[in-house]
């Protein structure tokens, strides 16, 4: 390798070492490593940096990319980005607590969520533009996430970057309805009525602490909240909360009021009627991942296996297979009735579970009658077949709680009724719209 080819590598080592060594010394070392020891260029550079007391990780090993081109599989990548948000967080790793930082980074091509795993190594400041080296990416929910591990280095630069696609829910404040709350929202403004409130004592990092938890309701749904600071709140207050953040648990968004959150108590009745009336599309539900209390409408397109009369373990309520519980073994089962169905509204689909009372209401048969019929007909699937016949293709409106697991979102129904549309009235309305359009 001649001098000319070597020059950019010498430059790079010199940049990393800064005052620690001059270029001539580096060049000499480089030649020794490459011609005498005959190691690879990469190894040579790392060794030289190390010998002079520098950080070899600061060498530009990864490829420089833009946010848009991240695939979620990069093992080492460099990026020039603006730090949009910085959120410290404490997590449990193998029983010990560990501090990490997460947030959002962006450049001219888009934004990407990040996590800093070594907070001693890397400090990020909101609003600064940085050159990140040796980060790696992982895919999460179909999008890449940037990770700054123990090899990552960060250099603050003076360059200015215009960030595109910064979601409004992550930077600055935003007024949101309860149904719009989603994981990771950061400085949100939300109004509603405190329908329940209780004080709890918890132990956080070895310290006892009093917190307030409760439920906030508006006309689009309800959300559980936790007050970590000193905010005063009373049950039945109508409030406007400014600067809360959202974390999800099993897809269900939860509102957190940290030290920065501010609560304004509004006059009673100023929020109007708070009955849950707003119907969410199933696509909205899928995107949110969960909801504590929500209203949806759709068509029952399938009644799934496991519907009808079932036996449960008397100890743990698990469903028995061949009178055997997978934890308690052979047991004397307890009868139960349920329907597992798929609701589809044309935008997405949702698994819905109807417990005994709702099942009885929907198929018009009580559990005792169901047991009797099943025995008489000697058909264990009788109730499932009845449910299929009665429910397939029916439109329903259902209210309940939605949470997510590995199989996607699932609703536990609380309330259900069949929807009878006035087809003529609705049809005439749509026709007027369409013909007016012509």
């Amino acid at each position, binding site marked *: 390798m001649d001098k000319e080819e070597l020059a950019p590598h010498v430059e790079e080592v010199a940049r990393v070492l800064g005052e620690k060594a001059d270029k001539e010394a580096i060049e000499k070392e480089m030649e020794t490593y490459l011609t005498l020891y005959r190691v690879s260029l990469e190894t040579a550079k790392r060794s030289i940096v190390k010998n002079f007391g520098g950080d070899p990780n600061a060498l530009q090993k990864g490829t420089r990319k833009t946010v848009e081109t991240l695939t979620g599989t990069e093992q080492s990548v460099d990026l020039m980005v603006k730090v949009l948000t910085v959120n410290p967080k404490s997590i449990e790793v193998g029983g010990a607590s560990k501090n990490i930082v997460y947030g959002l980074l962006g450049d001219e091509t888009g934004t990407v969520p990040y996590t800093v795993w070594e907070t001693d190594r890397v400090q990020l400041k909101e609003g600064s533009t940085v050159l990140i080296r040796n980060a790696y990416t992982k895919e999460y929910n179909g999008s890449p996430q940037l990770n700054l591990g123990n090899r990552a280095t960060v250099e603050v630069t003076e360059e200015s970057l215009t960030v595109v696609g910064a979601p409004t829910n992550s930077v600055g404040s935003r007024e949101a309805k309860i149904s719009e709350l989603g994981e990771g929202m950061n400085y949100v403004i939300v109004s509603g009525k405190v329908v329940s409130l209780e004080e709890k004592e918890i132990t956080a990092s070895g310290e006892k602490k009093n917190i307030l938890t409760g439920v906030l309701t508006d006309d689009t749904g309800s959300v559980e909240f936790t007050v970590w600071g000193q905010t005063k709140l009373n049950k039945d207050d109508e409030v406007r909360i400014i600067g809360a953040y959202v974390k999800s648990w099993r897809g269900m968004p939860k509102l957190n009021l940290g030290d920065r959150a501010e609560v304004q108590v509004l006059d009673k009745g100023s929020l109007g009627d708070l009955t849950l009336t707003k119907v969410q599309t199933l696509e909205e539900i899928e995107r949110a991942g969960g909801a504590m209390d929500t209203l949806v409408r759709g068509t029952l*397109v399938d009644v799934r296996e496991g519907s009808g009369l079932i036996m449960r373990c008397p100890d743990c309520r698990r469903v028995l297979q061949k009178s055997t519980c997978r934890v308690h073994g052979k047991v004397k089962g307890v009868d139960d009735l349920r329907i597992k169905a798929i609701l589809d509204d*044309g*935008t997405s689909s949702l698994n819905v579970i109807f417990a005994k009372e709702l099942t009885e209401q929907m198929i018009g048969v009580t559990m005792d009658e169901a047991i009797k019929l099943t025995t008489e007909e000697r058909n264990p699937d009788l109730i499932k077949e009845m449910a299929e016949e009665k429910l397939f293709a029916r439109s329903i409106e259902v209210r309940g709680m939605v949470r997510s697991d590995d199989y996607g979102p699932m609703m536990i129904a609380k309330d259900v009724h069949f929807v009878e549309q006035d*087809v003529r009235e609705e049809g005439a309305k749509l026709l007027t719209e369409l013909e007016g359009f012509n």
Partner: protein
Amino acid sequence: MISREVAWRIFAAEFNSSSYEIKGEGEKAPSFLISPLGAKINRIFVVGVLTDNENVGNENEPVWRAKITDPTGTFYLTAGQYQPEASMALAKLQPPCFVAVVGKFRTYSPEEGKLYVSIRPERIGKVEAAIRDNWVLETCKASSDRISAMEEAMKLGEPDADKLMQIGFSLPLAEGAALSVKHYHPENLTRYHAMVVDALKFLLPEYQTGPDMSADAAVPEEIEIAEEDDVDKEALVLAMIESLDSGRGAAWDEVVKKSKEQGIEREELDTIANSLLDKGFVYEPVLGRMRKI
């Protein structure tokens, strides 16, 4: 997590005009059929009149073929041994009746550039008229939403799902519309606009004057555009069948005789009767008899 594919609400006229299939690559990747209005179909939900139902296989290996009509045309269904539940349900169904179907699309391409689509049912069940009416309304709404997305996509020089989402369309609508415009290059959507309007009129009693409510602008097989005159004759024959029906259907001989009196020759009557059968206005309860549905 693999999420379940949504069931699209789509009329037969739009479904049957689809000619753009995106085959899923890899083992579990789903395939999609892109409809002219940009429905990105894997699964569909249909309610209509079961007009034909026949086992074209044998007793040991039944293969059921069925036809379901909606206000715009006919869906074709095939259920074989891998659709045991749907096959069993079909074996029990006697046309005509209202049925609801959830199924996946299938394509058949006998030659390059030709694509026929049908439904492979997962679930099929008898339903009441109200559910059909409900479906027609819902499908009108869904189609007109797709038309709106398509109109915006057509205005864009380079159709782009992101831009459509910025205007406020949902991801599936935006994605489908962008794909459709790129493939079909529609000049206008007049035909589908008319399809929705006609389907809506189908629901409204003030427009229900006979078979002419199924305007031919909506029928995908555009080759045979019926003349105004033909439509009137169809209405006439339909009225005849209804009036000659004393409970078991109108005797075909009687219909032939009456038609002749009205100046409709045998050959023309056959065409009209076939058209009425196709559109699902009449059926044959037994050979030689016809009834209005």
